[in-house]
């Protein structure tokens, strides 16, 4: 596999980084405190083309391959500290745009993909429930057949983007006795009678990405809004997760690069006991560990791009990358705080914000424990 990015991808990454530095992360310290989504930044991302990158041109996108998109996400992660916004972008892309592209009918693609690309629709995903997190296939939301449609009833938890979303991809079961083979995906538009966004959820990190409960009470959805076949919601969900696991970490990779650069600059300029703190082996070793982690993470992320661009399955590889990068990210964030000392612990510098964001990466898109389960399955254990 190629360990260095091609010139073209390097240019893409640099362009994304420049864009992020100039257009994203405005007033972040305040918005991070108040948990405020940056709708203007979302619009700017759409104008830059981020929301349409993996979508073919006939549906309003750019038709780029996954490896190109990873380079862009890495650049964005490096260029802005607003990881919440990047998390929202990822949720939108992998739980709405890609599943609709892969499993949608011609009408669904025509109706939804273009506005999802140009930013006029924001997508959210309703999968997790109060009692169905890692065991997602035990979900209880019911979809009862009713003439030419379904009536959905249930509550979804941890719905990223819910407070600002226009479109929801929701999973429900047509018959709990069928287990995974009863789960069915639906596209539901905001304003559909019986659908409402519940209480906003406050999070430890990724606070600029809004999250809420989603409640369906006798919510009638025509069969034309079913995404994929009845009882085949699991492949839709798995498709979402495979892409999300692969891509969401590219922005973490960028964040780790930015973090290392900031730590190196601080270690070179901050003097204690008469010399730069980087000259002390105990500090230098932390920076060395951060660099080693970064260099072991990058190939794992880009391997997913190569596999998916070649049309190959990347289930195990995505889980390996998700597990390794997220856990490395947390460790590097802790190291960064130690390098910055008391200043790293103060909220105004936002060094601690990286740590709070990083903890989320070991939980979303499947916890580290779930990633290990997937890898074990790949080993046929």
């Amino acid at each position, binding site marked *: 596999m190629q360990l260095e990015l091609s010139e073209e991808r390097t240019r893409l990454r640099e362009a994304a980084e420049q864009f992020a530095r100039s257009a994203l992360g405005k007033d972040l310290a305040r918005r991070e405190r108040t948990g405020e989504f940056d709708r203007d930044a979302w619009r700017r991302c759409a104008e830059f083309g981020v929301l349409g990158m993996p979508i073919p041109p006939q549906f309003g996108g750019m038709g780029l391959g996954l490896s190109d998109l990873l380079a862009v996400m890495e650049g964005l992660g490096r260029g802005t500290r607003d990881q919440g916004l990047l998390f929202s972008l990822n949720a939108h892309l992998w739980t709405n745009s890609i599943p609709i592209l892969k499993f949608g009918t011609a009408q669904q693609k025509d109706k939804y993909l273009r506005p999802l690309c140009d930013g006029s629709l924001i997508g959210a995903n309703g999968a997790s429930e109060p009692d169905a997190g890692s065991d997602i296939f035990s979900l209880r939301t019911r979809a009862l057949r009713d003439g030419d449609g379904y009536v959905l009833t249930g509550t979804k938890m941890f719905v990223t983007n819910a407070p600002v979303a226009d479109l929801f991809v929701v999973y429900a079961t047509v*018959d709990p006795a069928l*287990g*995974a083979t*009863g789960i069915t995906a639906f596209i539901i538009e905001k304003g559909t009678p019986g659908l409402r966004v519940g209480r906003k959820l406050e999070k430890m990190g990724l606070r600029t990405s809004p999250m809420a409960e989603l409640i369906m009470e006798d919510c009638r959805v025509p069969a034309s809004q079913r995404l994929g076949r009845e009882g*085949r919601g699991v492949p839709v969900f798995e498709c979402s997760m495979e892409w999300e696991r692969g891509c969401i970490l590219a922005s973490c990779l960028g964040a780790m690069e930015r973090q290392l650069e900031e730590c190196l600059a601080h270690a070179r300029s901050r003097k204690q006991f008469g010399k730069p703190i980087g000259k002390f082996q105990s500090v230098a070793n932390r920076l060395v560990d951060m660099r080693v982690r970064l260099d072991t993470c990058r190939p794992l992320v880009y391997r997913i791009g190569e596999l998916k661009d070649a049309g190959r399955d990347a289930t195990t590889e995505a889980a390996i990358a998700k597990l390794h990068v997220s856990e490395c990210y947390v460790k590097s964030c802790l190291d960064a705080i130690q390098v910055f000392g008391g200043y790293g612990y103060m909220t105004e510098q936002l060094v601690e914000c990286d740590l709070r964001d990083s903890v989320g990466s070991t939980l979303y898109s499947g916890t580290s424990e779930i990633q290990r389960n997937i890898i074990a399955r790949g080993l046929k254990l």
Partner: protein
Amino acid sequence: MNDIRSVLRAYILENLLPGEDPSNLTDDTELKESGILDSMSTLKLVTYLEEQFAIEFAAADLEPANLSSIAALQRLVQSKL
């Protein structure tokens, strides 16, 4: 029927029971309750059978009783041909 049976046996032994003595897998071996077929592997097996035999299962076809053993799966596939 024998063809369906051999396709099922080959798939299960290769993907779900690697290293298992083939003689331990009988037509009546319980697949669901024994944990051989979990949520994900059920979906993969069903998709494989649809592709292999150019058939389509409805959600209601996939009730646990129809997935409980090789014999039950064999009957289910046969009913769609």
